[in-house]
């Protein structure tokens, strides 16, 4: 295990370094001078030089990369071009909206999709099974922002029971208003995520139901649900944990889009406005941060899977049968 852990940590670190190089390289090597375009027409060359010096783009690339990474480690990711605020501070100020949004959406979709997926598998030919499959097939094809727009139309504009968007000025000091303004965004992300997750849960449960040990348990007189609970859960959990991990990261990306539907001042709106305004330091930090989160989640998922399934710990000879 310890050797595995060591290589896995090594791969994670390597991936993080690679990710930082990719982010850095894309922003520096692609044609187009973001310093020039971000200032717009009628810029004097003095202003340009000043900006390049601020950004450090007048230095050799390796120095720039080194400074950026060193900055990240010392907790300073640079200063935003647009707001002139430190990037770290800017990002931290948006977390109280994005984190609750994506975590709540994740929790809701797990609570919805795990039971639905299991039921859909056990009653695969029944009304529930067919309906769940049909709805989830549709759900994965529907764009998430469209779900948001429709929910706003129905629940905010027509029914008037929830706010159509925005976040209370006092933030979480007015908890009731803050929660109310997050209900529709959470529902939007959850609808999209559940559609994906329910398919994986159903598929994993179907796999387990076909196994010999479940058939044996049934032949010994256990009911379908009892056999599944006793022998199926742990086996079915391995692929499901993988997809939960991936979806946890996806929920954050879902929040990026959905925040824009509801005009929530979170990381997503910050990212989009920074991209539109070519605010390089902010884009760079946000993209690397989100990617790092995806990588770390993948890492934790791998560890969790090995924790659940001893076959994965025994090496590929046994575990590779899947």
């Amino acid at each position, binding site marked *: 295990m310890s050797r595995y852990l060591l290589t896995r940590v090594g*791969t994670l670190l*390597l*991936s993080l370094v*690679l*990710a930082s190089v*990719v982010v850095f390289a*894309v*922003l520096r090597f*692609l*044609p*187009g001078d973001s310093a020039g375009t971000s200032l717009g027409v009628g810029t004097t060359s003095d202003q340009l030089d000043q900006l390049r010096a601020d950004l450090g783009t007048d230095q050799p690339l390796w120095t720039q990369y080194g400074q950026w990474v060193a900055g990240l480690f010392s907790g300073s990711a640079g200063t935003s071009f647009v707001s002139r605020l430190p990037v770290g501070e800017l990002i931290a100020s948006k977390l109280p909206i994005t984190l609750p949004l994506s975590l709540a959406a994740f929790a809701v979709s797990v609570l919805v999709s795990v039971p639905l997926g299991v039921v859909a598998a056990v009653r*695969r030919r029944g009304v529930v099974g*067919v309906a769940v*499959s049909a709805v989830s*097939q*549709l759900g*994965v*094809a*529907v*764009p*998430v*922002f*469209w779900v948001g*727009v*429709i929910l706003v*139309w129905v629940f905010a*504009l*027509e029914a008037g029971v929830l706010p159509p968007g925005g976040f209370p000025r006092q933030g979480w000091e007015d908890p009731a208003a803050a929660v109310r303004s997050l209900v529709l965004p959470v529902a939007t*992300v959850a609808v999209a*995520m559940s*559609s*994906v997750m329910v*398919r*994986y849960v*159903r*598929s994993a449960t*179907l*796999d387990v139901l076909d196994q010999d040990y479940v058939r044996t348990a049934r032949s010994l007189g256990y009911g379908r649900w009892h056999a599944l609970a006793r022998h199926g859960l742990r086996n079915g959990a391995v*692929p499901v944990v*993988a*997809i939960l991990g*991936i979806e946890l*990261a*996806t929920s954050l*990306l*879902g929040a*990026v*889009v959905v925040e*824009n*539907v509801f005009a929530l001042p979170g990381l997503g709106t910050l*990212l989009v406005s920074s*991209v*539109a305004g*070519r605010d390089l330091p902010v*884009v760079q930090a946000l*993209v690397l941060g*989100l990617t790092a989160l*995806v990588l770390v989640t*993948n890492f934790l998922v791998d560890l969790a899977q090995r924790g659940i399934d001893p076959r994965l710990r025994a090496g590929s000879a046994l575990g590779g049968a*899947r």
Partner: protein
Amino acid sequence: MSIDLGGEIPVVEGSGRLAPAREEGVLAPATGDGGAPRARRRSVSPSFVAGLVMVGLVALVGVVAVFWTPYDVGVGAAGTGGRLEGPSAQFWAGTDRLGRDLLSQLMGGATVAMTVAIASVVIAGLLGITIGVGGAAPPPPPDVALLNVVDLMIAFPTLLLAMLIVTVRGASLTSAVVAIGISGAAVIARVTRVNAARVLREDYVTAATASGTGWWGTILRHVLPNVAPTLLVQLMLLAGGAILAEASLSYLGLGSPTALSWGRLLSAAQKSVAVQPLGAILPGLLIAWTVLGLNLLGDGIRERTDPSLRGDR
């Protein structure tokens, strides 16, 4: 694909983590146990037919819209009707904020969607297959390094890569398609590599090599034809994901400012959803229709080529 955003990390067959959760399309009828396999083999999968019809319709409209739309809704075209009108005999889907015909714009959206799907698939296919075949065939050392890069690209969300590229190159259809294509290439490379490596271990490849077939001959005659069905399925899924990703970008205002993307139409109609709901409803439904069609098409191809999926699931 999910909430796709294009942000979903595709789970690839043979990645050793988890089999994809696609199964037979929901349109497939529940067959009784012990159905005659020989009869099933000849029958065409309902998912395939449904997908083909759905995607075919969109493609047809997309082609027609290049030459003709009921009203001119090109760049700078003036409105011909009242603002935010509901559906009428004159404007079947109503009009937008500037009094322009919605149906014509939605037809133009089909052209954009098909262009995005085809261009992304071509980029991803060419790049991915080249990298994948290169990774599977000897010599081995670059393979490990390549795999790490490919894995990273798979983990790197499409939408974020697109945003990076848009930051530098500016918002355009090309930026979007290039980003989506590169992200997709990682998945295609992975699938190609895994499957090509399997084919290269087969006895008939050894036999071919022994009888003097060269590297190119082996790749063209044995590897690609064997990998093609799996790749075709992935490319169909990718096409749907590409349409969703481009729509997301356009919705966020990071796509082409002039192309009639369904995402941009939806974003423009969002403010007036209470007055003219069709303007917001229709683009979303069309995206869902097209993506669902491509997914069903992928499912259909998979059912045809993977006998293990036939049967009672």
